[in-house]
């Protein structure tokens, strides 16, 4: 135990110095395609020793950089999200935030999803209310796949008289 403490403290010492300016900055995603894998490294990360180890291993990413082919699905050669993937990618990568905001009937992730789906801002409140009402079904679909979530949302929008008109305009 003592040895572990000493090792841990030693690591803290080195890591803290190393952190100068660099900071714990684990960018884990190239921004596209990796989906939930992007956060695979973040386990137990608030415990001190693993936290410091994380700062030291610091999976700081350079992939998805401008010039290179990222090779992950949903990305262009130059590290941006493909236009036709934007909505499902967003739904996939923000699922926890989206479902929380759906239940709460508002929020920036939900507003952003609505924007990506082409819902005009004056109809956002109606869109939020609809997602709150259909929360259970949307979460179920979202847990299967983000494509299913977006599809259910699109269907719901097209069946809602107010939203359907607003989107088709």
């Amino acid at each position, binding site marked *: 135990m003592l040895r572990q403490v000493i090792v841990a403290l030693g*690591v*803290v*010492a*080195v*890591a*803290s110095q*190393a952190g*100068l*300016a*660099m*900071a714990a*900055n684990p*960018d*884990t*995603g*190239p*921004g596209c395609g990796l989906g939930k894998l992007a*956060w695979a490294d*973040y386990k137990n*990360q*608030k*415990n*001190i020793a693993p936290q*410091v180890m994380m*700062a*030291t*291993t*610091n999976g*700081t*990413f*350079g*992939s998805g*950089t*401008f010039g*290179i082919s990222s090779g992950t699905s949903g990305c*262009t050669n*130059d*590290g941006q*999200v493909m236009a036709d993937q934007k909505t499902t990618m*967003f739904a996939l*990568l*923000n699922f*926890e*935030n989206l*479902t*929380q905001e759906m*239940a*709460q*009937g508002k929020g*920036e992730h939900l*507003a*952003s999803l609505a*924007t*990506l789906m082409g819902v005009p801002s004056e109809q956002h409140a109606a869109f*939020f*209310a609809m997602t*709150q009402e259909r*929360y*259970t079904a949307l*979460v179920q679909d979202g847990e299967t796949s983000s494509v299913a979530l977006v599809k259910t949302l699109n269907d719901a929008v097209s069946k809602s008289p107010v939203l359907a008109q607003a989107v088709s305009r």
Partner: protein
Amino acid sequence: MHVLSILLAACLWAISVQAEEPPAAYLSQLRQRAHEARLADSREWHLLLHYRANLFGGYTSEQDDPGFFLSPDGKTDPQAELDATLAHFFSSELVGRSKQPAQCAFVARYAWLKTQLSFDDALLKPLTCDRFHAWFAGFEAEAVTLIFPSAFMNNPASMFGHTFLRIDQRGQTPQTRILAYTINFAADVPKNEGLAYPVRGIFGGYSGYFSTIPYYLKVQEYRDIENRDIWEYQLNFDEPKIRRLLMHAWELGNASFDYFFFKENCSYHLLSLLEYADPSLHLTEQFSVWTIPADTVRLLAAQPGLVTDTAFRPSRVTLIRRKREHLSVSEHELVMRVVRDAAAAQSDDVRSLPLSRQAFVLDVASDYVRYKGERDEAEAASARAQNRQILTARSLLRIPSEDLPILPFAMQPDVGHRTSRASLGGGWRNNDTFEEVTVRAAYHDLLDPEPGYTPDAQIEVGSLSLRHYNRADQSRIERATLLNVVSLSPIDRLFRSPSWKLNLGMQTIKHGECQLCSNWSVNGGIGASAETHLLRREVFFAFAEVEGNYSRAYEERYRVGGGASVGFYADLAERWRLLASATYLRYALGDRSDDVRWAVGQRYTLAQNWALRLEYSHRDHDNDVLFTVQAFF
């Protein structure tokens, strides 16, 4: 017939022109004009190629990727690089990491040289750069915002922060800002580097790359996972400057920089990008030894008219702590019940509240369950299931959550003191008087003015104090600090992180016969802290600690022991803080002895970068009073 002959003549003329002036001739003409205009000596060219003047004349580029240079000597020869660049503009050969013709890989160089030398499109055919144009259009750029995630709660390794840029989209609202792309510079560190990481990091063993990660992923990383508050500084960049910024960022995609934690880090290369976007800014030259992200934020905020708007984006912990202030005691109790057992979300106790209060209680509970899930792997799955249950109950209420403005606990970083400190002072020690001068490289201690810094955290690196004792007529190194970290995490019903500290350095002690003796010590402790608001804000702390000492003063040269310390600090007024602590240590190994210490210190802030301190410390039979004036620089 007449028309035909004219056409024929025109063709022949065109052919003859081409024959008379092949690319080689036009190239040498361009090179000559560039020479005459001394373009290779201009600031613009140096910014484009990241040249820095060498100590003894000449230039070296900070770029470390050979693919960035079109001349083999490009890294150290601005003129050769310019000549080679002009030649490559005539070629469709693919260059750089992105494998494009030079005109497309280096769009900013091309655009600038074209303006300077007025390229003749007929003689130097412009290429269409579809990849660049698609990429550029993808940003829908309208504005540029500097993003500064502040320190990682409880992790001083991140206390220096991080910076990146967000390219704000046209038509974006505060609600949809997360859709914008960022421009981020980071080291590419292989997984599981372990202890090699700091070493390679410090000595430039990694390559740093620019990337365009959507802002929503960065927000998730900092807000939800690392619990770091984010500050957003919108910059006053017009359309041409934004265009220059993106063109140069595109060029940097063709390259990598060696990554140095201390200087050539995330913030440094962002500054070089901003400098190219607006060459009237002189930023990177202000940082010669290290670049601390918070310092770069202060530097940018100090440029007249540059920062137009500042916004704050709270971390989940800040969110919960602020929301909690709006709960009554019984509502708080309910939140705790729902957190323990999600089924309580539909209990009568919750349902008996007014609808908006039900919503608020469930929202806080949901935030807290998410926080717990992110924090602990073992709890992640059950926390997600619990949160679903709470959110299902929440969705049945059918009302949107109220908007609650969330204020930060720490002030914005640009109001903070600068990171290096010099102190001048004097005092008494036992029967002697002394003068003292101290210089500290970085960064912040618990008595330093708090605005702009993460509360309850201290990290000091590289501090040296020199004293002259008048009666003893002796000058000596009084103290040296290699590293001194204190991370206090006040515990309450929701948050229970340990506090910890670590100190590595040398002090002057009195021990036995030895009056002024150097004592090297390493000390680490783990404990807990709590805050109260009796006056303004007070934090109390207690640590169990271990300490090892090395000094000639001890019979066996060393001693190792353990003990405990307690203390508190209190803000007596806005600018006035008091810090007091007491320690008892017993050394069981080596020189068997014990040590009783107490200290009381107070600081008064004169201005953002000026402070006064009066400190008293007692150690064994040693008494020391010190008065100092401190300047941050």
